[in-house]
């Protein structure tokens, strides 16, 4: 594996701020970014990434290539929660298995954004439609997870309101702002893109640093508590992203994505949601333990993807694509 890739990932300021957050927690610093600042940063990041993706999409247009990429995204968003559920059922009860499956079937926007920042550091281009792919991959796993819990769960469980659930899945704040900004970007095109660029592009990396600082703190806080759940969640949270990444790489190669898009597609499949899905699961499967599924996604798979995954997946792409 290419050492310069590892270095250029580890020397990326956002990743360094993520480490800094983790260290802050480990040395017992009281450093924290109080709510609702992280919520504001996350809204900002989603708005910016959506808007810029839309502007790019306006340039490229809706080609067949774009359609195929989006189809592949939906496919993975359906397959991943199903196969992970089968694995999870071996060790967890139905509710927790369904919630974890939904978590891993969905995506982490920040991992995606960090991958984009990594690509731009390497000078590798990527398409605006990958943002649309991300938006499409956020929600299906929520539906599948809840359906699994309902179909297979005890009949005395929480009755589910499907109309509520669909709304929570497709109209939750994160998905909504992402899609909305994407549409606005696509509608206003380059003119709008230029007008907002100082906000959505120039200060973007700095805002990402601040957000990842917070994510580092939150991850580290949870790492301590992970032991209570035994070894299974840890192994799962390290192995499943890898397996999903390999499947994604194969699929990306098969449908002919470029290297930049392939990396983004891979991190989407390899990452797990800790924003949209937990918010939905709290309401739809309250019997599941957020301490389990949030911790797995946030404290293990997220750092793994950010630190090890990005250069690893890129190295594989460099080898196979060239």
């Amino acid at each position, binding site marked *: 594996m290419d050492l310069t890739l590892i270095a250029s990932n580890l020397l990326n300021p956002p990743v360094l701020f993520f480490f800094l957050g983790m260290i802050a927690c480990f040395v017992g610093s009281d450093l924290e970014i109080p709510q609702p600042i992280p*919520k504001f940063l996350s809204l900002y990041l989603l708005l910016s990434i959506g808007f810029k993706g839309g502007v790019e999409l306006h340039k490229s247009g809706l080609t067949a290539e774009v359609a195929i990429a989006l189809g592949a995204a939906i496919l993975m968003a359906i397959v991943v929660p199903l196969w992970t559920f089968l694995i999870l059922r071996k060790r967890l009860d139905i509710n927790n298995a369904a919630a974890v499956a939904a978590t891993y079937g969905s995506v982490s926007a920040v991992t995606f954004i960090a991958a984009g920042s990594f690509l731009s550091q390497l000078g590798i281009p990527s398409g605006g439609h990958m943002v649309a792919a991300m938006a499409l991959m956020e929600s299906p796993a929520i539906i599948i997870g809840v359906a699994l819990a309902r179909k297979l769960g005890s009949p005395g469980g*929480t009755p589910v309101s499907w109309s509520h659930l669909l709304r929570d899945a497709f109209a939750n704040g*994160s998905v909504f702002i992402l899609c909305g900004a994407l549409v606005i970007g696509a509608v206003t095109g380059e003119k709008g893109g230029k007008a907002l660029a100082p906000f959505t592009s120039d200060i973007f990396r700095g805002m990402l640093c601040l957000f990842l600082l917070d994510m580092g703190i939150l991850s580290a*806080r949870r790492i301590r508590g992970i032991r209570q759940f035994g070894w299974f969640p840890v192994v799962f949270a390290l192995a499943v992203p890898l397996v999903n990444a390999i499947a994604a790489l194969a699929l990306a190669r098969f449908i002919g994505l470029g290297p930049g898009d392939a990396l983004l597609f891979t991190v989407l499949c390899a990452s797990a949601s*800790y924003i949209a899905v*937990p918010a939905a699961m*709290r309401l739809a499967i309250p019997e599941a333990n957020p301490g389990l599924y*949030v911790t797995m996604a946030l404290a293990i798979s997220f750092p793994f993807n950010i630190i090890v995954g990005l250069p690893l997946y890129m190295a594989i792409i460099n080898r196979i694509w060239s």
Partner: protein
Amino acid sequence: MQNVKRIEIIVDSPEVPSLLKELTHIGVSGYTVFHNITGSGDRGERRNDEPGGGSGNSCILLAIAPEKSDAVIAAIRPILRRRGGVCLMSDAQWVVH
């Protein structure tokens, strides 16, 4: 002054809208909600620090006529049973204004 029951309910923040809907349904018209609350209970610690928000508790405070308290408790008990949370009741006097 008037004797009332003072009921305080501590629940996950995302539960608040449905609880309030239930309460409105059974005729409770006045309530107060305290936000940005953390805590710990049977379901572990609530730190209100998840990036998506919504991972803290809220506290709903109700002052109701004593004869209504049974209906209120009957309405919220199943929700609490399913989703956790704490409900305390005590006696108070409403300083009629």
